[in-house]
């Protein structure tokens, strides 16, 4: 195929690099159109009026697609979001193309993509329903959000991490104004008048950002903040590492350790600020607190992507870099360093949550309400149970955060692009199917059937988990990837944690309705085993290809 112009070359690159993602989106749109054309035309009674069903069928897949477009057209999948340098790929700067073209072609293609997405959503994904969806301005909003994200991610910044804060702040301001406009029933023309002028403005900012990046104009404000680094103990340490393992743990910490606490530190204050408007609404206070507690867990899901990256030196490659692969460390030691880093990262993130929540409750005046509700709960179930319940909930959140960080190691560390991308696709497909299945179960009144079958379902899952764990343990043992002692201690520790959790659950929820073995199955499924144990196998497969 002959590519005849720079514009066509840029388009070809987007199409070729993201062909699998684009094909998946095309498949999604085809499914939606088939549902609309076949099911609705034939008159099947399909009811999509409830907000939940609307969210499952339309909002989740379409907003996921929009997020994917944001990542693609900002070149976000190949850049470093936290770096000072522009995220616009430096390889493009040497092409004999005017700067405006460099900036505007990706913006134009991005605009076209989100406009097509909105049109397809409007035509194919929206069924006749009582939910009113405006015709034009959501499409313009998508274009505006994309344009500003492109402009602000391509801008060079004076401090590492500043890009994240600026982008988040800008998009939050736009979203807030739009939400307020919706709340006050603003007309379509008003929304268009507010949004449309932002498009050329964002395009001009983007052109300026690319022009600065192209001539290597990166401001450096770090000198003004050296006192802060000294204050935080980040100043140069001359002490030698005690062992290779501690050096590798330091490496992992410096590479990924700060990400999760950093994200939590940015998001938590914004969430907890809502306590000041919660007044005496118990529901709102509980929702805000739950949101704050889920923040590390959700952020850990994103953090896991970089934690499980094999390359280790920031290169775009999926395979292990020679720098890391040639370290005189066993595969188990390399994994141990990652696990140690994730434990510290989780602990620091939760330290922030545990300190921030009481502070915010005290300062916002919501503390008496929380104490009162806690006292009532303790009176209802007994103080020891209430305390154990609270500790178990906190431990559950902390463990879930850590689990999110490490459970994809066994995929990411393989360094196989097809496996990594395939697993993401499978996971999204499963998530996409879960909602409709749940709706079907509720609609067809099969909740009782599922409840009765739950022990059997859990038993099957436990069986799969134990078979997988046995297979992994055998491979790890035969490959001499970890010492026998480590294998035995790991298995024994896992058994102890499962038994403790089982005992606590059994004591906490005593009653004839739920059989004891149910708790044992839950405890076995809750504590990570097979996937974490498979990490050394994955790394060995990558390191010794």
């Amino acid at each position: 195929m002959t590519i005849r112009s720079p514009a066509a070359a840029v388009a070809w690159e987007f199409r070729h690099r993201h062909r699998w993602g684009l094909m998946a989106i095309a498949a999604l749109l085809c499914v939606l159109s088939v549902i609309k054309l076949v099911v609705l035309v034939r008159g099947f009674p399909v009811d999509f009026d409830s907000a939940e069903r609307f969210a499952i069928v339309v909002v989740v897949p379409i907003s996921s697609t929009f997020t994917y477009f944001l990542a693609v057209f900002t070149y976000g999948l190949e850049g470093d979001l936290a770096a000072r340098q522009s995220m616009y790929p430096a390889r493009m700067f040497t092409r004999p193309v005017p700067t405006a073209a460099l900036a505007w072609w990706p913006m134009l293609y991005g605009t076209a993509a989100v406009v097509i997405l909105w049109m397809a959503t409007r035509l194919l994904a929206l069924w006749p329903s009582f939910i009113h969806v405006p015709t034009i301005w959501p499409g313009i909003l998508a274009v505006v959000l994309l344009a500003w994200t492109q402009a602000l991610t391509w801008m060079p910044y004076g401090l590492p991490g500043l890009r994240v804060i600026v982008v988040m702040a800008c998009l939050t301001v736009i979203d807030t104004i739009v939400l307020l406009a919706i709340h006050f029933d603003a007309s379509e023309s008003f929304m268009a008048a507010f949004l449309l002028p932002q498009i050329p403005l964002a395009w001009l900012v983007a052109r300026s950002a690319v022009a600065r990046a192209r001539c290597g104009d990166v401001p450096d404000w770090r000198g003004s903040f050296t006192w802060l680094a000294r204050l935080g103990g980040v100043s140069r340490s001359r002490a030698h590492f005690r062992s290779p393992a501690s050096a590798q743990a330091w490496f992992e910490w410096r590479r990924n350790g700060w990400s999760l606490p950093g994200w939590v530190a940015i998001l938590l204050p914004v969430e907890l600020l809502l306590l000041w408007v919660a007044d005496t609404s118990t529901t709102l206070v509980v929702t805000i607190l739950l949101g704050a507690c889920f923040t590390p867990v959700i952020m850990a899901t994103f953090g896991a992507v970089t934690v499980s990256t094999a390359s280790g030196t920031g290169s775009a490659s999926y395979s292990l870099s020679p720098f890391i692969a040639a370290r005189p460390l066993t595969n188990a030691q390399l994994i141990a360093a990652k696990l140690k880093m994730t434990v510290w990262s989780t602990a620091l993130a939760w330290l922030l949550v545990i300190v921030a929540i009481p502070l915010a409750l005290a300062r916002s005046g919501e503390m008496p309400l929380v104490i009162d509700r806690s006292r009532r709960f303790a009176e209802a179930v007994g103080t020891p149970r209430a305390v154990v319940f609270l500790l178990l909930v906190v431990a559950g959140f902390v463990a879930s955060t850590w689990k999110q960080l490490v459970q994809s190691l066994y995929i990411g560390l393989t360094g196989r692009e097809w496996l990594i991308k395939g697993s993401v696709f499978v996971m999204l497909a499963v998530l996409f199917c879960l909602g409709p299945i749940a709706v079907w179960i509720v609609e067809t009144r099969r909740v009782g059937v599922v409840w009765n079958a739950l022990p059997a379902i859990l038993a099957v899952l436990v069986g799969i988990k134990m078979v997988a764990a046995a297979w992994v343990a055998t491979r790890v043992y035969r490959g001499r990837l970890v010492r026998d002692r480590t294998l035995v201690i790991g298995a024994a520790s896992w058994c102890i944690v499962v038994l403790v959790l089982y005992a606590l659950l059994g004591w906490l929820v005593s009653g004839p309705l739920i059989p004891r073995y149910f708790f044992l199955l839950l405890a076995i499924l809750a504590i990570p085993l097979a996937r974490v144990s498979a990490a050394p196998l994955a790394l060995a497969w990558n390191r010794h290809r």
Partner: protein
Amino acid sequence: MSESVISVTELTRRFGATTALASVSLSMPRGAVYGLVGANGAGKTTLIRHILGLLRAESGSVRVFGLDPVADPVGVLSRIGYLSEENDLPGWMRVDELMRYTRAFYSAWDDAYAEELRQTFALDPAATIKNLSKGQKARAGLLIALAHRPELLVLDEPSSGLDPIVRRDILGAVIRTIADEGRTVLFSSHLLGEVEEVADHVTMIHQGTIALSAPLDDIKKSHGGKSLDEIFVALVGMPAADSSLRSE
């Protein structure tokens, strides 16, 4: 010159339909400088990656210090200094952090020697790796490969990163010092002139097979004193490097 540091027997490796190495056998005794030469894509890096245990032998065997580098990576890698062709040092590290980090892995790390190398290579300890030039990055890589005085130094295409001054004035001297101390150097390059200056023994690799492997003096003697470039062309029918590279 008795015990083999590297012993490769009937090593074959394929990547899809391409055979990168075909029944390669090689033995490298201790205490000499080995030049591994060949055109780009000849199989030099693939062979080196097998020696480091980064590739698993599909057939045949690889032994380094008598150990299997895949089964015992710590035993092998702790005695090797390696400068990668890819120059993939972590960009976020400072030079002093890189030295401190690497020091932890090698019990024989020599602080005084590391500092001497840093000064010789004119590397600012506070400089961040990603802000270094390509040549400076290669010097930093060479520093951490040398500072623990490895029994085996593996340099994979160092010429592609190091600037001409370092190559001419420093690299040769360093390599000779290592060999004089009874340690071994494996030096891969497609710039035959450079290999000719420092190598005791030359192995020519072409399309995954060993075209020639012998002491440099013997090769020259048997080819009437011709240069390695001329011998390479005579053997494989093409130069190892294009003219632009040779003129560097």
